[in-house]
């Protein structure tokens, strides 16, 4: 319970703890005891970007303390604190288990290996830049896919409206009582979406093929957020699955046949 609330809100507020006490019948002091015992629970709101420096043994002998101090200098906070503008939280972690690549820093789930002191500033700046930019830069790793409906095999590509400068993938979407078109970027790895109406964050959307009107739901739920996944066939072989929850970035391109 504590774990799920912490994951959703980023921290455990006093209000949340009091509510848990009411609902479960456990005393507030017992709940507080559990929360303060476990290091990964935070009682304070954390920043937009979370920097975790590994302080395991292998990273320690490769100067992890020096890296932590450099982060403290650059962000002007101590480990365990959040910057005043709430953009960065700095934490240390007792071993992330990537010991061969130490010293390791994880920022927003992305692992940076073999970090040197001059690199710390670059990592911070890059994180600031990436969160504000929304353009997809030309990149070897990003490429367009051509997809069709997994039921009727009709192409879903739409040249009349480009997203990210490529033909978009046009589907019909519905959630709640709203119903209309949705266009996804065909660039594998881009999350740009244009839609007839605004989809709220975390909302699960139902996707339908505009040609045969079948719902394009896969059999497997998203490993990250448990929402249903949408299955699309790729033209030259393979299957793309994307999560149907707005804001969830999980996607998988499978060229060996569908994951069952």
């Amino acid at each position, binding site marked *: 319970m504590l774990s799920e609330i912490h994951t959703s809100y980023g921290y455990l507020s006093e209000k949340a703890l009091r509510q848990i006490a009411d609902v479960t019948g456990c005393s507030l002091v017992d709940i507080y005891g*559990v929360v303060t015992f476990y290091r990964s629970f935070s009682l304070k709101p954390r920043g937009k970007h979370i920097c975790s420096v590994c302080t395991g043994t*292998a990273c320690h002998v490769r100067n992890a303390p020096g890296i932590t*101090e450099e982060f403290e200098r650059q962000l002007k906070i101590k480990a365990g604190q959040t910057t005043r503008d709430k953009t960065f939280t700095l934490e240390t972690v007792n071993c992330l288990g990537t010991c061969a690549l130490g010293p390791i820093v994880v920022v927003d789930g992305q692992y940076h290996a073999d970090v040197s002191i001059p690199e710390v500033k670059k990592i911070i700046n890059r994180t600031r830049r990436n969160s504000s930019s929304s353009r997809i830069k030309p990149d070897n*790793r990003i490429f367009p896919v051509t997809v069709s409906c997994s039921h009727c095999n009709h192409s879903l590509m739409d040249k009349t409206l480009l997203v990210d400068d490529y033909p978009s993938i046009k589907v019909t979407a519905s959630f709640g009582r709203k119903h209309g078109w949705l266009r996804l970027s065909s660039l594998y790895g881009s999350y740009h979406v244009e839609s007839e109406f605004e989809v709220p964050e975390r909302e699960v959307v139902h996707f339908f093929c505009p040609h045969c009107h079948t719902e394009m739901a896969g059999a497997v739920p998203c*490993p990250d957020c448990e929402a249903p996944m949408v299955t699309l066939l790729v033209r030259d072989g*393979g299957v793309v699955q994307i999560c149907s929850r707005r804001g969830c970035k999980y996607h998988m*391109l499978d060229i060996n046949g569908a994951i069952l």
Partner: protein
Amino acid sequence: MKKIESITDFYLLRDHIISDRPEGLSTLIIPAGTCGQASGANDLIRVAKKVILEKKLIDHIRLRITGCHGFCQMEPSILIEPRNTFYPKVDLGQVPLIIEAAINNEIIPQLLWTDSETGEKIERQQDIPFFRHQSRTLLASNEKVDPIRIHNYIENGGYQTLAGLLEKGKPDAVIKEIKSSGLRGRGGAGFPAGLKWELMAKKPKGNGKFLICNADEGDPGAYMDRSLLEGNPHSIVEGMLIGAFATGADKGIIYVRSEYPLAIKHLMIALRQARDLGILGQRVLGTGFSFDISLVKGAGAFVCGEETALIKSVEGKPGEPEQRPPFPIDKGINGNPTLINNVETWANVPVILAKGAKAFTRIGTPNNTGTKIFSLVGKIKYTGLVEIPMGMTLRQILFDIGGGQIDNREIKAVQTGGPSGGCIPEKLFDLPMDYDSLAEVGSIMGSGGMIVMDDHSCMVDVAKYFMNFLKDESCGKCFSCRKGTQRMYELLDDISRGEGTVEKLKLLEELALVVKDTTLCGLGQTAANPVLSTLRYFRDEYLEHIEARKCRGKVCKDLITYRITENCTGCLLCIKACPEKAISGKKKELHQLDESKCIKCGACLSVCKDNAVIII
């Protein structure tokens, strides 16, 4: 996925999967465990998929994404089956060339592994020294299996051992087999697993019997459990199913630390797929046997690796250890019989039942059978996960597999067993790596962490590091552990800052022995080991810190000075790198370091290309 309703149907599915396999194609294998992803394997995978789609190669080559293979330092790497060509540290631009070569059954010589001493190029992974001397029973499976495809696991022989046992096996015979194999708990203590299972089997059903997989790998420096969980989660599921069959357990729990998000993801996928297929849940494979496994996440507490603390954590309480006896087998989760084994122990179970206990005992030494995965990290040329037969000497691991020291330094000591372990000095490097030998020299096998230290490591700093860790992770229940670890840390800190005295050293030693004797759980009882073992073999370093105010490892900041020598070419790099602006100078002129401003962060040392920065 259709649920399997009988054992016959299982074998039919397996045959179908195997016959469906396209013959004659090469497979591109990209390890993408957490290490791989941190090294850029995801980009490699992206580009590989892009090339295969754009060039319409889907019927000409297969792609397999796996977990860690073990040679983490060389990732992102690519392995090509069936030739077993190994390409280390692959660049994005090289991916299309590697794919083309693999399709034509050719190799690209300039991208192969090169022996740094002889310049020899080696094609096949098994011929590379790092791999050649290992005994890769468990890690080899990580190469063959895509962890998020249960069909792939079945294709490689997975769940067949379980099916065979459900069909014809007897629980007593399984326990006998585990006992004869001599399997000892791989979590650190090395307790005979067969004995534990035998005790568990005798317990009455009551309100349920629990099996736990302890995946709270908290030892800093150890990550072999992570690689097994990420790379082959079904091997643990099968191990636990076999364990449940043998001991009569009906519920399983995998307690995994929250710091392993990829392992958690792969486990959730594996459990779901196993349930969908009817391998977990009511009526496994259509038989009368039922067993299911749930996942419980840790939340950042090292002490929860201790079994009684783990049980408290599963029950939703703070992980404070309890007195033993009663042992978990008698009184575990909510008072019910609970059998706890480590990840690597569970992973060995299907291997033993498939190949037989006798084959298992042929590897290793009497009383220390089988293989053990170690995480070889620190100041060594080749770091990564190595699986060796028990009894191999430390020297062989360091030099034959690990490639020896880096930068012409000298390897001074190896720390094993995490914060509960100890340091092994160079003169004892011919020690065989097994539970008993390590205990004799004042260390422990522990979970398998092996941290290599050279002459630029300080043994006082190492003891201080572990004491800092332990004082934070102490649950606080026992006064002597709570206060003792804190005070020991303070004494070590004094010594490292040049404020140590001989009296303080005496106090430290005495305190270490007191904490060892007067605490409830393993954390406290072994908290003294880092101090005691470094004092045993490196007392002169401690005395040097105290009497001469000198740190020969050049680590303790208050006892060292940074200096720029005449090798300086005036390139300005260190001036830019210094966060305190302590270095001044013009281009092409000798740079000057102001010692009063220097905070000894090491930035200048890391950027200097002329070896002009020294520490004295």
